[in-house]
């Protein structure tokens, strides 16, 4: 039989056959001739015109019967006609589809077979129709074996896929069948010797002129070498990323314009910032990060960056940056440009190292130095006391020894009045020498109080307490500070006031040596009373019977005391135009208070 390849000829022929069928029906008054027309239309024009013809067969048949006046047979004849026409249409529709697919695959078969890689085709519903020889060889099956397996299970091919990849591949294929989207899949495919290699599977649907999917055609390419290279690359990249993220330093990248666009994990975790989008910076990010810089350092850092971005010079700076917990920490930052062959800057590399602990250690060292300096200033008073003691010791020793000798000369038998008289003269001389020492010391304090600057007494108190914190701790003394925060500064010699307060605090601590540890409480108050600033130091010691006398030189309640401290305190306070006083009673502790004028009358 001749092949009719032109669709136009085919169509015209079909129209001719259909008309012939209708003419035949009219001439014979037999509607069954219409079935030829229905078949011709269904076969040549597709299923929609076919269905229309089938439906039209009823009225047309009725027309034929009416023309020939055979309406008596109509119900029977027309029923047979319509059912038969519908049957013809259905058969044509089914076979037309099947033969179309068959034709499609047949025509594609040659191309697939010639593919250098693995090739396959499938029905629109995903039923695999064909594997090319390379594909069959790969899995080690004959076409028949494959055919058999395929008929049992549409997805039998997935048994040739690595178990870890099979389900994903099947799902992708199903997805593509459902939606008509091309399929891209990468999976390990089993060789007949049992080894797996990576293949990339790409399947596209074939469509007819109406856009209907007529089948799927897939090519499967061995990408194992490529895949391994890629994996090695990924591995190296991961390693590199891991290294960048784990080196104990913060790394960041900036565009040539200075917009930050990458921060390593350390930096991200440290500062609690976004990792950046890793491709380009944006100005909003820059502003966010600028706000992390300590306000005091911001201008310096901005200037340093601007300088480097302008000149292309590497950048070194130290500044404080806010950590995610809100604490500002010192960082040592270095930023260097990366240049291309022409010398143009491609990006900036930055490194931040947290040096806060070192900075703080240095700071602590400096503070310790300062404390030491202050302590030695405090020591100077005790050292002064030693030299005072030494100076006073001799005249006192002389007075004591002379007085004893005096007594013995008089008590001798017979009394030696002559020697006693000489000794008495010496007693007077030496006692005067001792008094002279005291006068000199007090004059010393009155003179050196010339250096008057505003002094924050609260600050002095806290510093003194820090100075004696060891003594407080070792003496189990509980410190209570009640400082008036609004206390104005007083014009004073700071060092001298420090010594007064230190003296009072020390006295308080020492006074409580013999009271139970639970009762050892030292209270320090500061307050403003009129035009005076008043400081009070209160202990819970045994108290003193004659509180007025404690400011006298040589009056002491301590076993090894000189009785000089409070006397000097009084000299200092009086040199500052202030007053000092004490309240005490045995068993009730002692309170020493001094007040200084906020403004000097003659200064």
């Amino acid at each position, binding site marked *: 039989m001749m092949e009719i390849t032109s669709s136009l000829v085919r169509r015209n022929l079909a129209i001719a056959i259909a008309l012939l069928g209708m003419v035949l029906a009219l001439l014979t008054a037999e509607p069954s001739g219409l079935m030829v027309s229905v078949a011709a239309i269904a076969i040549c024009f597709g299923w929609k015109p076919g269905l229309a013809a089938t439906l039209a067969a009823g009225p047309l048949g009725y027309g034929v019967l009416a023309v020939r006046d055979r309406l008596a047979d109509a119900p029977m004849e027309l029923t047979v006609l319509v059912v038969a026409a519908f049957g013809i249409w259905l058969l044509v529709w089914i076979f037309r589809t099947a033969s179309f697919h068959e034709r499609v695959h047949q025509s594609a078969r040659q191309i697939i077979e010639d593919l250098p890689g693995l090739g396959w085709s499938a029905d629109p519903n995903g039923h695999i129709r064909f594997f090319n020889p390379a594909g069959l060889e790969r899995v080690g099956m004959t076409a028949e074996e494959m055919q058999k397996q395929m008929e049992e299970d549409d997805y039998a091919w997935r048994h040739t896929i690595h178990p870890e990849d099979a389900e994903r591949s099947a799902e992708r294929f199903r997805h593509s069948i459902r939606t008509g989207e091309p399929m891209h899949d990468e999976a390990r495919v089993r060789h007949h010797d049992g080894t797996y290699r990576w293949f990339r599977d790409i399947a596209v649907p074939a469509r007819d002129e109406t856009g209907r999917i007529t089948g799927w055609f897939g090519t499967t390419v061995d990408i194992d070498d490529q895949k391994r290279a890629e994996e090695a690359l990924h591995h190296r990249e991961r390693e590199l990323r891991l290294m960048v993220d784990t080196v104990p330093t913060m790394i960041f990248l900036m565009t040539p314009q200075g917009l930050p666009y990458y921060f390593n994990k350390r930096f991200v975790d440290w500062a609690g910032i976004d990792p950046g989008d890793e491709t380009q910076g944006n100005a909003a990010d820059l502003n966010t990060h600028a706000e992390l810089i300590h306000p005091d350092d911001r201008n310096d850092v901005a200037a340093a960056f601007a300088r480097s971005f302008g000149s292309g010079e590497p950048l070194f700076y130290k500044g404080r940056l806010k950590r995610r917990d809100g604490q500002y920490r010192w960082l040592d930052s270095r930023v260097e440009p990366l240049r291309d062959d022409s010398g143009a800057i491609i990006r900036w590399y930055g490194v931040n190292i947290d040096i806060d602990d070192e900075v703080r250690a240095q700071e602590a060292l400096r503070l310790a130095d300062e404390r030491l300096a202050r302590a030695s200033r405090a020591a100077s008073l005790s050292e002064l006391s*030693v030299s005072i*003691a*030494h100076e006073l*010791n*001799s*005249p*006192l*020793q*002389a*007075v*004591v*020894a*002379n007085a*004893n*000798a005096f007594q*013995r*000369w008089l008590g*001798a038998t017979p009394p*030696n009045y002559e*020697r006693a008289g*000489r*000794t008495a003269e*010496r007693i007077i*001389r*030496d006692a005067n*020498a001792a008094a002279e020492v005291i006068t000199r010391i007090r004059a010393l304090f009155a003179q050196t109080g010339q250096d008057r600057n505003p002094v924050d007494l609260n600050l002095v108190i806290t510093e003194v307490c820090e100075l004696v914190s060891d003594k407080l701790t070792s003496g189990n003394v509980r410190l209570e500070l009640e400082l008036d925060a609004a206390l104005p500064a007083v014009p004073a010699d700071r060092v001298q006031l420090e010594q007064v307060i230190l003296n009072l605090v020390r006295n308080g601590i020492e006074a409580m040596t013999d009271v139970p540890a639970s009762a050892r409480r030292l209270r320090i108050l500061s307050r403003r009373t009129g035009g005076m600033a008043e400081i009070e130091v209160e202990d819970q010691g045994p108290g003193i019977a004659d509180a007025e006398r404690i400011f006298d030189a040589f009056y002491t309640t301590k076993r090894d005391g000189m009785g000089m401290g409070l006397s000097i305190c009084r000299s200092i306070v009086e040199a500052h135009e202030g007053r000092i006083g004490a309240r005490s009673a045995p068993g009730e502790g002692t309170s020493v208070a001094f007040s200084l004028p906020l403004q000097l009358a003659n200064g």
Partner: protein
Amino acid sequence: MAVALAERREDPVAVLVDDDRAVREALGDLLNSVGVDTVSFASSSEFLTAELPDRPGCLVLDVRMPGLSGLDLQRHLAEQGITTPIVFLTGHGDIAMSVQAMKSGAVDFLTKPVRDQSFLDAVSRAIAADVTQRDAARETQKNVDLYDSLTPRERQVLRYVVKGLLNKQIAYELEISEVTVKLHRSSMMRKMHAGSAAGLFGAWQSLPAEIRMDDA
């Protein structure tokens, strides 16, 4: 005053070294009032260059003085073999200093201002120690002089006697007759002013070690 002191050879004398005149005078006065003579110096060097009376006594030294300190002076005197007892006075008691001073043989270490009784007690203890020491030294010197008057043979006999050897054994050791040993022995006992073997032994014990060890 030195002349007056020289007249009373066995009366004790306390030597005060203190840079403070008031203290020197007062302590001197105090000691005088209990009948102890005193000699005072304002510094260690003044003390070292002075001619001191040969009388029992003690040194009262101030620890802190310009120039040679009291402790330095103690060391210096010890090197010279001078064993006069020392009482230290210091303005500020220092345990380390006092330990060192006491180890070096100080009688006492007192802190100024010192109570009169403590001071007087310390000084009289020191003087007593010096008296004993001087008596012992004088006894030793006497015995050394007696020993020096012995002939070599008498010295040999003396050594054997104090070792507890009998005349017969001594005669054997010296390879002389027992009669000759007896002659040497009685002569030696007489020269050593020893009435008995026990007395001889006491005198022997008081002799300086270098003599007793000398086997010549």
